[in-house]
């Protein structure tokens, strides 16, 4: 069970990492096309603008789910130096549970919202607004999976990713 969770989790992490990068690349290209089209062709591109908005929302919430799995969400770590490692480990479980509570409510609210706007379409592309708010539902569900993976799986694979992910904070990142 733990192994299954971990291997699904690893697969998801790879897919999410790819999707986040691909969404950003697509946004860059779409915005450049918009600039080119407005200045040189004089044609408006409201459809492209809507698609880049959707991609940005998905990039944010899929990325946020991945960050949940890596324990990389922004934290105010003022007290970290002063805690013993025993307390710290227990605190991490508490944080996971708190995160899960938030995500459960978010999933319910996101679903409610999708029902409210079920009929709404984006004006230029005709895309349903479920596609905008669906990103939030995806974030909640994926985030809950990753929290569950840590809490119940406690698999070595999960631990490794978590601890490996914490390190880059200490030294400089890939781009420096």
């Amino acid at each position, binding site marked *: 069970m733990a192994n299954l969770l971990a291997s699904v989790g690893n697969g998801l992490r790879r897919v999410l990492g790819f999707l986040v990068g691909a969404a950003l690349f697509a946004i860059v290209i779409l915005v450049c096309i918009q600039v080119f089209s*407005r200045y040189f062709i*004089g044609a408006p591109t409201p459809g492209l*603008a809507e698609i880049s908005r959707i991609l940005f929302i998905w990039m944010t919430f899929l990325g946020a789910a991945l960050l949940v799995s890596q324990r990389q969400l922004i934290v105010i770590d003022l007290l970290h130096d002063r805690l013993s490692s025993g307390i710290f480990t227990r605190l991490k479980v508490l944080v996971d549970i708190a995160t899960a509570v938030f995500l459960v409510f978010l999933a319910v609210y996101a679903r409610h*919202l999708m029902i*409210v706007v079920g009929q*709404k*379409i*984006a*004006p*230029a592309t005709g895309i349903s607004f479920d596609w905008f708010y669906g990103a939030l539902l995806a974030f909640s569900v994926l985030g809950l999976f990753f929290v569950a993976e840590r809490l119940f799986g406690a698999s070595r694979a999960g631990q490794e990713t978590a601890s490996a992910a914490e390190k880059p904070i200490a030294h400089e990142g890939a781009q420096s």
Partner: protein
Amino acid sequence: GVTIRIGGAGSPDSPDTKAMEVFKQKMEAELGSDVSIQLFPSSQLGTVDEMVEQVKGGVLECMYESVGDLGSFHPAANVEGVAYFYRDEDHFFRIWRGPVGKEILDAIAKDAGFRVLGPAFHGFRQFLLTKPAESLADIQGRKIRAPGIPAYIASIQALGANPATIPFEEVYTAIQQGVVDGVEQPLVAIKDQRFYEVAKHLLITNHMAETMGFMCGEPWYQGLDKRVQDAFAKSADASADWYRDYTDSSQAKVLEELVAQGVVVHKPKLDEFIAKAAADSKYDAALQPYIDKIRAVK
């Protein structure tokens, strides 16, 4: 009694907000302490789109904005972006207070769940440009800011300008930096948003007009007492009457103020604008039945 919260997007001193206040006064005069009305102007509750969703979700009773904002829920609302519908104000009210307007608004209530009350006129849209423009020829190929709504884009294109979709809050700096050559907005908005500081050439084209209105959740509205419904409809129409008088009496004053700020005003003959819009405009097929209905109103 009943509590009615109404959201709006106009700034605190704008006529849109005053129209909400007129409504509130009339309602209180009609119903006294049976009603409590709270106004939330200047997008305090969120953007116009967010307020529309809040009304739809039943957590906000009503909002006061242009009916076109319902376009993402019902195609009929998009007729707002069609050029040269209205010959004059009387024609506007013959449409929206007559059977055709009622039919369209009822369709929106039935299919999309929004009840629109007190359709109101807050002035025709005009072109404001950074470079001199006196005629139709002068706006050909100019980059004009447009809302990201297909009917608006089609209309601006039909007039020969190049629409560029820029978010509303970035319009001032976009004009200043030359990203666009101008905007098309009602005079009140040109004054309220201070666009005249960065673009000085006003072309009176009267090419479109929004239909303002109180837009409420239909299930909520149908749940009201008949007495409250009647008072609501009466007060909303009274607010629209106030708005019409206000627009009539203030347009000349607003124009004077703009001229005092250095704006050059041109009033071209509109025949060629109307002819070009009629010849070159192509609207979404879903709009066409509504366009035909409105055009048929004498």
